C-alpha cells in the first residue's frame, strides 16, 4: 500500500487498526454481495463490542451471523433481522441491542454520512414507532422526521472488480448497500473477485471511485444462496 495504490497483501493488513467498540458498516443484502472474507477476518481478530450497520445480519453460521457466535456484536443497526435464530436468542437475552431502521432510511443515512450531510428529513416512518424522539416538521403540507446520518470507523465492502487505485465495480444486485457504505467509512476496505490493471475498467462505468477507498484485496468467495428459486 503506497500512494494511490490501495492494494494490501493480507486480510490482517486489510483490517489493521480495527479494535473493540468500533462501528463497522457492512455492504450486502441478505447474503448477496456480502464481504464474507472480511467478516471472517473480524471473527479471527476477536474484536468485541462492535456496532454493526448492515441491512441484515446474515444467517446462522454465515455472513455477519458468524460474529454473533463469539458475541462480538453489541449493537446492530439494520432493517430486517428475521433470518437468524442466534440473533433472536441474544436479543431476547439482552446481550444484543438492535436499532431497526427502514431500509430506504438506512440507505440514505449512509449516503448522507458519506456525502457530508449530517441529517435529512424523510416522510418514511412519520407517525410510527420509528419517529419516537425525533424532530418532526411539515413541508408543503406533508409531515417529515429528521434522521441523522451514519458514518463508521470501518466500512467493509464486497466488489466485483477493482483496479490498483481502488476504483470499484459491482456485479448485478450484489451492488445493493456496498457503494453507500464505501463512502461512509473512515477507513474503507474493499474485497473483490479480481484486481485488474489500471485502465482496464471503463472510467464511465465505475460505481465507487477510488477516492472513497483506502484498501483493496482480492479474495475467493463462497457466495452462498439464501433462497434458491428456479423456474418451474
Amino acid at each position, binding site marked *: 500500500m503506497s500512494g494511490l495504490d490501495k492494494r494490501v497483501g493480507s486480510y490482517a493488513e486489510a483490517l489493521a487498526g480495527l479494535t473493540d467498540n468500533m462501528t463497522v458498516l457492512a455492504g450486502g443484502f*441478505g447474503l*448477496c454481495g456480502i464481504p464474507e472474507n472480511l467478516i471472517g477476518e473480524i471473527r479471527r481478530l476477536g474484536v468485541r463490542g462492535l456496532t454493526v450497520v448492515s441491512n441484515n445480519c446474515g444467517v446462522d453460521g454465515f455472513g455477519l451471523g458468524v460474529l454473533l457466535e463469539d458475541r462480538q456484536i453489541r449493537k446492530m443497526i439494520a432493517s430486517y433481522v428475521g433470518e437468524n435464530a442466534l440473533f433472536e436468542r441474544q436479543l431476547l437475552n439482552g446481550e444484543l441491542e438492535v436499532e431497526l431502521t427502514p431500509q430506504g432510511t438506512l*440507505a440514505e443515512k449512509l449516503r448522507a454520512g458519506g456525502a457530508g450531510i449530517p441529517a435529512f428529513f424523510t416522510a*418514511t416512518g412519520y*407517525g410510527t414507532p420509528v419517529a419516537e424522539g425525533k424532530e418532526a416538521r411539515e413541508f408543503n403540507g406533508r409531515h417529515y422526521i429528521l434522521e441523522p446520518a451514519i458514518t463508521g470507523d470501518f466500512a467493509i465492502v464486497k466488489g466485483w472488480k477493482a483496479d490498483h487505485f481502488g476504483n470499484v465495480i459491482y456485479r*448485478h*444486485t450484489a451492488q445493493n448497500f456496498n457503494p453507500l457504505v464505501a463512502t461512509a467509512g473512515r477507513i474503507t476496505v474493499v474485497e473483490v473477485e479480481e484486481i485488474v490493471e489500471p485502465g482496464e475498467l471503463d472510467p464511465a462505468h465505475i460505481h465507487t471511485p477510488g477516492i472513497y477507498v483506502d484498501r483493496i484485496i482480492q479474495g475467493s468467495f463462497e457466495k452462498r444462496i439464501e433462497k434458491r428459486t*428456479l423456474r418451474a
Partner: protein
Amino acid sequence: MALTREQMAQRVARELKDGYYVNLGIGIPTLVANYVPDGIDVMLQSENGLLGMGAFPTEDELDADMINAGKQTVTARKGASIFSSAESFAMIRGGHVDLTVLGAFEVDANGNIASWMIPGKLIKGMGGAMDLVAGADNIIVTMTHASKDGESKLLKHCSLPLTGCGCIRKVLTDLAYLEIDNGHFILRERAPGVCIEEIVSKTAGPLIVPDDVIEMSF
C-alpha cells in the same frame, strides 16, 4: 365464495396500466406478476436495486449475485437496470413508482396501515415497507378481510404499531375491493357470491355501501 390468492392477484393485475413501474411485496402481491394482461408491458421494481425483474432462473441461469427483495434468485428482463439501495429508495420515496402492492395485518378508515410488528412477538424489522407506503401515491393493500378467528382487519383505528399513516386508499381483501376516503371505507366490489351483509359484518371500521357495488367476475 371468498377469493383465492390467485384471484386476488388477478384482480389487482386489472389495475396495471401499460408503461407502469410497479413494486410488488412478498406473498399475494408477488403473484400479480403472473397475471399481467395481454398487450400491457410493466417494469417490476425490486427494492434491493433492480428495475425490470424477470422470471425465476433456470438451473443454467442461476446466479448468486442476482436476487430480488425476497432474497430469491431471479433474472433481469430485457431493458432492466441495476443500482444501489439509495438509488432504489430515491425512486420509491420520490414517488416515481406508479403502483405499489403490499400485504398488511390491519388497515384503518383513516388510511393507516400496520404490517410489521406484533407486540409480544419477536420483531424482525420493517425492511422497506415504511419507505414504500410513505413514498407511493398509488398503493393497493392485499390481505384477508378478517383473521382466522373472525376478527376484522378493517378497523376504525389500527390496534398494532403503524407502518405508515394516512397513506392507504385502496384495499383488496378476499371478500371485497374497497376504497378509503374521508374516514370511511367505501365498498366498491364484492367477491363472486359473497353477500354484502357478510362484508358489513366483517368490517369493524365505518363502511359506506353505495347502491352500485359490483360483483367481481373471473
